[in-house]
């Protein structure tokens, strides 16, 4: 990786009672890199995402973005500095239309309607929302245009349903709305938590193509994914977690042959047998 990392995690630890869900994780993510996190269920991958995006606070360790300490900042602040994420089980706003869902993604970028004035800023926002001067209208119109462009990336999946409430969408389409919402933030760092969970092979291939496109456009991505095939194709590097710890990190093939990884996936005792046929792991 070239230059200073965009995201850097040092000794990140989170305990829930007796369980250490995330245990001293170190990770660097360079500008434009795509790193995947894999590991068995309960390895602490999503908890790690929560620590990076401010939904949960680490007990120890620090998170830096561009060298700036952002450990424990509130999620709304982190959205403001360009961190966007999707959620494992999908969290769209069910009663909002597709358009409104994605517009919420652009919320942190609103400027005209959210003047950065201390104390009375919120009141000005209320006033501007009611009066709607031309600058506010223009900003809103611009964002709507942008949302249509983002939705167009998903072909005919979302555009025809732009005014439908999200609860009426198929599961796969809800996942797409989540990704569209994340893109509307114009993120510097995008965290995708199992974007293809529950998708069929065609849909998975589409999603994989989209992620490859985003990567090619220079977006820095941290990806949690169980479909190893996709992980191997997309990732610059792979980090493997088990029981909260990082057990391996490196290029895809390297990690895939790592005996620790095989053991974590197949359990103790079986690892030797599996070692003879590492292809089975994938």
């Amino acid at each position, binding site marked *: 990786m070239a230059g200073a990392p965009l995201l850097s995690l040092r000794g990140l630890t989170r305990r*829930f*009672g007796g369980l250490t869900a995330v245990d001293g994780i170190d990770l660097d993510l360079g500008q434009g890199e795509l790193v995947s996190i894999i590991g068995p269920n309960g390895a602490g991958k999503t908890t790690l995402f*929560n620590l990076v*995006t*401010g*939904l*949960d*606070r680490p007990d120890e360790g620090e998170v830096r973005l561009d060298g700036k300490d952002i450990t424990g900042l*509130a*999620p*709304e602040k*982190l*959205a*403001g500095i360009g961190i*966007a*994420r999707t*959620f*494992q*089980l*999908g*969290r*769209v*706003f*069910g*009663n*909002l239309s597709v358009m*409104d*869902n994605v*517009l*919420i*993604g652009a*919320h*942190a970028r*609103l400027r005209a*309607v959210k003047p950065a004035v201390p104390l009375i800023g*919120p*009141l000005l*926002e*209320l006033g501007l*929302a*009611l009066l*709607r001067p031309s600058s506010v209208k223009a900003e*809103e119109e611009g964002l709507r245009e942008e949302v249509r462009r983002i939705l167009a990336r998903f072909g005919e999946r979302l555009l025809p349903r732009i005014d439908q*409430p999200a*609860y*009426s969408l198929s599961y796969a389409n809800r996942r797409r709305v989540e990704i569209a*919402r994340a893109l509307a*933030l114009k993120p510097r760092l995008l965290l995708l938590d199992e974007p293809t969970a529950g998708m069929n092979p065609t849909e998975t291939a589409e999603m994989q193509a989209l992620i490859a496109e985003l990567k090619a456009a220079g977006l820095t991505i941290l990806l949690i994914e169980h479909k190893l095939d996709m992980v191997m194709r997309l990732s610059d590097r792979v980090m493997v977690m088990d029981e909260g710890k990082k057990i391996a990190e490196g290029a895809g093939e390297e990690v895939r042959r790592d005996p620790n990884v095989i053991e974590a996936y197949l359990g103790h005792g079986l690892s030797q047998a599996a070692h003879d046929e590492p292809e089975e792991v994938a």
Partner: protein
Amino acid sequence: MSSWLDYTINGLIVGNVYALVAVGLALIFGVSRLINFAQGSIYLVGAYIGWVAVVQLQTPLLVTIVLVATAAAVVGLIIERFGLRPLQNSVRIAPLLATIGISFVLDQLVMLTFSPNPRALPSQLPDIRFQVGQGTIGPLDILIAAVGTGSALLLFVFLRYTKLGWAVRATAQDRDAAMQMGVDVNRVNQAVFGIAAALGGVSGMLVGMYYNQIDTAMSLQATLKGVVAEVVGGAGNVPGAVVGSMLLGLVESYGVAVFGTSYRNLFAFLLLILVLVLRPNGLFASARQAPPEPLTGTFIAPSRPVRIPPWALVITAGLFALLPLFPVSDYLLQTLINAWLLGMLALSLTLVAGTVGQVSLGHAALLAIGAYTSALLSLNFSLPVGLAIICGGLMTAALGTLLISPSFRLRGHYVSIATLAIGEIVSLVILNWESVTHGPIGVSGIPPLSLFGYELVSAASVYWFSFAVMVLLALLQVRLLTSHLGRSFRAIRDDDVAARAYGLSLNRYKSLAFIFGGFAAGVSGGIAAHLYSYINHETFNTQQSILALTIVILGGLGNVAGAIVGAVALVGLPEAFRIAAEYRILIYGIVLLLLVRFRPQGLLGTI
């Protein structure tokens, strides 16, 4: 010194009583993540069944206790079976609204059966006092302590050593896993509601004996106190609820010792707000809990709102505007003026409860703030009435938002409890702050409505004025909802975790909603004050909060036109059918229950 011991004993005894209510709430919360707002009503039912047993049937004490426990348990089972079980797969707001509706129906039924006048409930125990150290203790104190401790022990044995008890604990830990392991969750719910109701009923009877008085106002107080104790101990935490109850009993008792009786409730609610702000998971919860799992389903019922063409709205508004020109009775105009005032309150509530998902149960407090501000400004500072009403609205926006802000970090049921408590606090402050509010005497001689120096004397002029203000507020609200704030509010309601992850500060946007909604409610209260010319601390009460909530559900949560349609329907129809006042709350409660069950999206649909 002796009095301190007395206050401590008193605090612990009262704490025991609260514990009986709070333990039930904790059990129910544990298995169904629901705060049962009807718990106080069961307590009330218990007290009145106790009265029937003691005074009319003259049963001996032990029989009385068994009778009350059994009857209350039956009520609990009925609530579970017919009120809540049908809502199991319903939206999250449904069971909350259902228990609120049930509590009002039960309270009203008791009131209609026994009349609202207080009754004496003799204790059946000899009236002697034993010297303990330097304080005294009576047989009733001992009975209450024994029942409290005894039930706690029985409950412990039940949860620890019986199969059903295990099932209850398993369900509390992980409902889905318990179901997969073959636990009959319905039976668990039944058991829990039965136990909770039996404890609550006995508690009501003991309190009645302790104060030798029962009345129908006990219900709301008991719910509030039980919930305070439960939240202090950590929701769903049974031993925590017991400790929280003792703490609450002591805080109140010492508070009364220092400041006097009229402050008793104030301490309870301040304790609640303090705990909610500082330790929202209760005093005994582990330091930090795992972040909540993604929520499935939506908070309000998804629906496609009924689209009313704009011309239809314009024509309807035009017809209502022209109504006073036709030969209609002043009575009809008066009724509609009431509907417009309630419409403004409903606009406010549909914004905060429907659009932002903060189900406020203390909304009448906002009316009171607006009314008192406007009345006092025009009386003491001779401010023109129009200006005073606007000041009332602004003051309500500011003060209301400030008061409710501790609840902004809370979710679902907690918001309702906090707002209920805040509503009580406002009413208690009005009652006790005599130098400004004239305390219980109230404010009289409030100048009548006037605009630019012209008094609005005729019913028609008041009608036009209130109608115009309501339409203006409604139009503003529609404009607000079509702005970026509309989608932001609704996003916070649907999923506050995802909303925060996309840069929406909950404090900021909930505040904005309460500022806007507070203004509308404050203006409504202000107009009402000048219309009534006399207000006191009871003018704006919980009944109005519940009426507003029913209106909002009837119209469709978040639906602006629905709020107004709901107001006309719920104010107008009882008038049209000449339903006596005492039956109205009962009807509102039943309407609320039927709506939640059969048409959760309301008449015009949620937005």
